[in-house]
């Protein structure tokens, strides 16, 4: 299922009129780095944590052709909790700040 580092899983996003999109590793990496930095982690630590979390999410995505963005968020938050609980909290709840 791997193709050039990316996997062929489609992500169904929240909301109406949204078509499934191909899973983007870089997008997930960026959002996890942002959560780590927002939780006070240094940049290098944030990058390495994000790489590890993305690897865990990618392995979870194997053999799953279609998932929702909420599934990815939930799995990523669970993986992130091991490395940085504060970042996991921010990642999980940043949509419910307002």
């Amino acid at each position: 299922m791997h193709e050039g580092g990316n996997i062929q899983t489609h992500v169904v996003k929240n909301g109406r009129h949204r078509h499934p999109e191909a899973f983007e590793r870089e997008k997930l990496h960026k959002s996890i780095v942002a959560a780590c930095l927002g939780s006070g982690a240094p940049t290098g630590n944030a990058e390495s944590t994000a790489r590890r979390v993305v690897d865990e999410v990618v392995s979870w995505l194997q053999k799953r052709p279609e998932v929702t963005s909420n599934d990815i968020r939930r799995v990523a938050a669970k993986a992130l909790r091991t490395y940085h609980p504060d970042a996991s909290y921010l990642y999980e709840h940043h949509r419910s700040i307002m």
Partner: protein
Amino acid sequence: MDIFTSLAIIAFAALIHASFQLSVSVLTLLSSHTIGAKRSRAKLLRLTSSFVGGAALMSLLLLVSAAFVFLQLFGAPVSLEVWAIACSVVLGIGVAVWLFYYRTKKAGTELWIPRAFAKHLTSRTKATRASVEAFSLGLTSVISELIFIIPTLTISALILLELPSQWQLVGALVYTLVSSLGLIVVWSLVGSGHSISRVQKWREKNKRFLQFSAGSALVALGFFIYINEVVALATGVL
């Protein structure tokens, strides 16, 4: 009502305004996105300072606008009927804050505002890059929480009309400064390097207390004004 009591009521109303969380939510999001986008600390401070400045200016503008409109409509000093209507608005919104302020019983600090409005504010916050955008976001965020701050603005504006003209400016400045305290606290925490997750965790942990205290304070303010202005004037005590 003497000048000290008037200023104390304005400060108390402004403190209730400060306890409302929409502007604080926007500031928290703005800080989170700015840090997450790896922008410099100087940029973070510029954006958050501009946001707080915009919010403070809009609070001041809304207060003086309300005072001007009330002066044109009702003259000064205002009649018993106007005070009675203002008190019922304060009491009504106080009870509404008790019941409806936060949207869900789940985790998070989602507020009882239209979701489309919240989404728009969130997308504008994400798109904010320049200080002028942050400033206008501060202006907008205060307008967005107008439904909650109508009672504090109304009472403060009516009290301002009773003050001597030289004290009206002091009253308006007291309201602006005190109503910005919540933002100033978050701004200083973010500026001094506290993590956004800690700020947000504190907000979530204490959200029910903030909701209860804001609602209770509004009810107390409504009763106090009712007794002090309506009952006292009607019975001829004052």
